[in-house]
């Protein structure tokens, strides 16, 4: 029964398997995989950057103090107007 790493290290048959040769994909295929992965990596990062840039613009646009003050002032004016209309002359 194989119980742990030490049993594997002590097993001559499994040890022989460790000496089996490594295989490599064809060089051009290995290079193509690398290029594809780099492209996917760059694409993903550009998408993330675009998303971040959009969020940054949205944040700046909506939380700009002047905008906030203007929106709050307009909302208050609208509320006073409605209340005045409801109360009547």
């Amino acid at each position: 029964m194989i119980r742990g790493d030490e049993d594997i290290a002590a097993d001559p048959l499994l040890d022989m398997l460790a000496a089996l040769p490594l295989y490599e994909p064809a060089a051009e295929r290995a290079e193509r995989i690398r290029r594809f992965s780099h492209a996917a990596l760059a694409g993903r990062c550009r998408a993330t950057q675009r998303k971040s840039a959009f969020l940054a613009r949205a944040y700046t646009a909506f939380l700009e103090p002047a905008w906030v003050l203007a929106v709050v002032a307009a909302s208050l004016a609208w509320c006073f107007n409605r209340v005045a209309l409801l109360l009547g002359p």
Partner: protein
Amino acid sequence: MDAADERSLLDGLKTGDAAAFDALYDHWRARLFGHLVRMCGRKDVAEDLMQETWLRLVRTAPQLREGTSFGPWLFTVARNLLASYRRSRLLDEERVQELWRLESDGTKAGSPFADAASSELQGHLEEALASLPHKYREAVLLVAVERLSPKEAASVCSLRPDAFRQRLARGRALLDAALDRLREKENRR
């Protein structure tokens, strides 16, 4: 590559660092490819599966959890892709063993193992491995060839460690028996 190096490379990968990808790719490429070739018996299929495995890594790198052990993660993805491939193409054990029947007929060209299996013993080992049922071959390869710990290999196979050790022991016994048969066949010649 130690755990700290691996962690920093994975962090690099999350930020889109191509150099981090290259370091991981260069370190694991041959081990992953060898595993896939031995599991499916076809070099072209192994190359396709390997490409998909690395692309999946790139796509999912940002979601990798802290403390993810890269080797087992990579082999788990490759294992799932191989399982999908086997389901879709009905790749059976017959085809893997076919390579060795061809070789024993004297037509060595075409076997993905032929070039690298330089010694007779290595040739026998490869042939005996190819004759093992899929799940036992996987267990033996992960631990003995790819050098994952039994615990890591158990996680790749979605098994409890004790269940995996039983599978490994059974695989080892089957491999031993297959080697004996090959030696007997050799002696009769």
